[in-house]
């Protein structure tokens, strides 16, 4: 009986991996030869919505000034703009920088938080209560938006169905080391192919929590951001789709971000994402399937996106399962030529699906030599299997031990003082 269960589990893992490989290829082929939907940045309209730009900051003295100056350089009617940098329990010079900038620029209205829970969801919730605009644009403290970004993001809310918009983040510190270069490749695949293909195919592009925006009324009607959730962006994405709204992706609204330069920091970041995302999975699984607003394709894509941080867990347990079966002498799982062909085909094509996607993204971005680093992503994926599984176990704890709140783990900044 145990052997049968182990064998069935191996087959289940193979099936899951095949489904995700197919998904990778579907998206990649769409970006290479499929129909590309326009985003709204080509609209020029004299009637723009009023916007509040929120920038959560915790101990961000290295980057705060540069980030606010970049937002001030953005072209948007000043009468329709307010910038709310949120000093979230900072213990460094962030507060002084914000006050100094506010004294110089009327549109900057800092919000200082010294009480209550620390972390991005709590900070955004407080800011939503003081924001004056219907449309909220969010940037992380280390992000440097281009001059047209605010207009290009805000214009999407002219569409009555749009609940949130997401732009593209581009790593700025790619030169630092091998890890930053690998993260650059991963980001390219995620945005240039994955997000854009989901936009093209009327599926579920994801709001990523920064370089994006959402309707303030909607966030408030959902009770604000759930402070137990470490992936408040994914949580909002699913709340919106389930309730009939859309998230649109703006591939040409690009913004530089800093990516982790050490494996340790990256592991912590991935673990936090996994924990948060898997918590969201438990939270919205049923709602997604029951939503009357979503098409079947949207539900399927939503399901695959919702469970994406579960895949490494399946993979790791599948490998352990295979090893156990090997030592039990039970590796002959199904006696069929078709199965052999399936496994051989998967080995030839399925394993390479994410690499193909990232290579295609580099091609679309017009860069070439960096794809020589693709094989090194294998080591990065191995790290992800472990850290994501760890995050999944934490999410299980959050779910079944009903933790009231999750500890927010701020990602370390690597920018040098001089650069700031």
């Amino acid at each position, binding site marked *: 009986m145990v052997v049968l269960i182990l064998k069935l589990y191996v087959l289940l893992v193979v099936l899951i991996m095949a489904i995700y490989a197919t998904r990778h290829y579907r998206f990649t082929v769409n970006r290479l030869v499929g129909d590309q939907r326009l985003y709204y940045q080509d609209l020029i309209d004299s009637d723009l919505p009023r916007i509040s730009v929120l920038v959560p900051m915790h101990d961000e003295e290295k980057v705060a000034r540069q980030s606010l100056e970049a937002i001030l350089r953005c072209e948007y009617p000043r009468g329709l703009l307010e910038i709310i940098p949120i000093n979230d329990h900072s213990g460094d010079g962030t507060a002084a920088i914000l006050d100094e900038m506010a004294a110089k620029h009327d549109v900057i209205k800092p919000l200082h938080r010294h009480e209550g829970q620390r972390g991005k969801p709590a900070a955004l919730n407080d800011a939503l209560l003081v924001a004056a605009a219907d449309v909220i644009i969010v940037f992380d403290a280390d992000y440097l938006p281009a*001059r047209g970004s605010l207009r290009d993001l805000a214009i999407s809310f002219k569409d009555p169905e749009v609940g949130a918009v997401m732009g593209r983040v581009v790593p700025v510190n790619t030169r630092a080391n091998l890890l930053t270069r690998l993260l650059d490749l991963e980001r390219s695949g995620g945005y240039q192919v994955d997000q854009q293909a989901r936009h093209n195919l009327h599926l579920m592009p994801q709001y990523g929590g920064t370089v994006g925006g959402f309707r303030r009324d909607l966030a408030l009607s959902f009770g604000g951001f759930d402070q137990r959730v470490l992936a408040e962006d994914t949580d909002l994405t699913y709340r919106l789709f389930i309730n009939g709204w859309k998230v649109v992706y703006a591939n040409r609204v690009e913004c530089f971000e800093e990516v982790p330069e050490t494996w340790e920091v990256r592991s912590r970041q991935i673990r936090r994402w996994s924990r948060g995302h898997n918590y969201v999975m438990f939270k919205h699984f049923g709602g997604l399937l029951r939503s009357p607003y979503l098409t079947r394709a949207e539900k399927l894509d939503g399901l695959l996106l919702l469970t994406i941080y579960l895949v490494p867990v399946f993979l790791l347990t599948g490998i352990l399962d295979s090893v156990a079966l090997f030592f039990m002498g039970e590796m002959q799982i199904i006696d069929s030529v078709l199965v052999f062909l399936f496994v051989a085909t998967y080995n030839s094509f399925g394993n390479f699906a994410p690499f193909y996607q990232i290579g295609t993204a580099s091609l679309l971005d017009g860069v070439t030599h960096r794809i*020589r680093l693709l094989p090194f992503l294998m080591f990065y994926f191995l790290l992800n299997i472990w850290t994501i599984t760890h995050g999944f176990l934490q999410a299980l704890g959050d779910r079944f031990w009903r933790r009231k709140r999750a500890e927010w783990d701020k990602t370390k900044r690597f920018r040098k003082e001089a650069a700031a």
Partner: protein
Amino acid sequence: MTRRLAGLSLLPATAVTAGAATHALSFEAALLLGAFGLLILVPFMPGLIEIWRPRDRYPLPVDMDYVKDPRHLGRSARALLAVALRGDQGPAGRRTVTLSKVEAVEVHDRLDVSAGANLSAIQLARGPMVVGERATCDRDLYARAGARIGEGAVLRSLACDGRAALGRGVSIARWLDVEGDVHVGPQSHLGASAAAAGFLELADGVTFERLWGSPVRTTGYRGPRELPPAPAPFALPDVLEIRDLEDLASLHRGDLVVGPGETFDRPLVVRGDLRIETDAVVDRTVKVYGDLTLAPGALLLGDAFVEGSVFVGEGAAVRGCIFSQDSVELGRGARVGAPGLVKSVVGKRSVTLAGDVAIHGYVLTDGRGCVICRGSD
């Protein structure tokens, strides 16, 4: 050595001590190991070279100064030329300047290009510019006063600080940018972009990709038409009531017809086709998953976001923008936007304009844009 290889290749100890035959076997094992190691390394070799001697390690380029500006091409060309000439007030004649590369600029007080002439340098006219029939110029033209381009002329691009008139069949390869009004003759081709600070009037058969004008209008234009005032801001329900899409907008699954003379005053999302009948009024923005048709005389006071194609019938008007992932066709007498507003018409596959059409702002298509007045006048 043999022992080390034996240890590496996991050969049994007896094999190591079994004389010459074992030596050969160990060598084979070493060869096998070496080949295996090499094959493991091969996929990483290009990457190792990239790490050792990086050729592509910089961030992806992001244009931090990018702002959507329909007159960007003309403005940047003028600015480049102004910097290169540094306020040159000298006599007319030929100069050599450095733009993106070293270029010849011919400066004229007044430029008259004879019919059929072929110009190969940048031409700057401080006064009026007249280009004769079928003349060609494969560099930019810049007129600081008005410009008149003769029938069949073929130009690379034209910047003009006054008014401009293009004759029949003029072809512009790249862009046209004019500070005043522009008349474009029949069967002309306007390249990637044509922009005017004043009106941009297009005759029958003109083809285009991007247009900007105040307004963009077609032959037979009969002046602005009075539209009802903009509706008051939509009365949003209480924040806590807006949760589902249907709290804010009317959602219709399937096709919908707004009947003749009816008025609809909520944002509208239609998961099918939408037809707004004659003299019907939709006060708010519509999102349509199928096609949108405005029958003659129909009125849409908000924007139209459409996944399918859009047809705006004779005399119908859209006060907001039209955005279609397919094609847009504006019938005779159609109006988009209103004086004092800037609005857009975006049709991914095509934009077709009939006679007496006016668009206050911007027109864009990734496919084919054309004016077809015959049969509509």
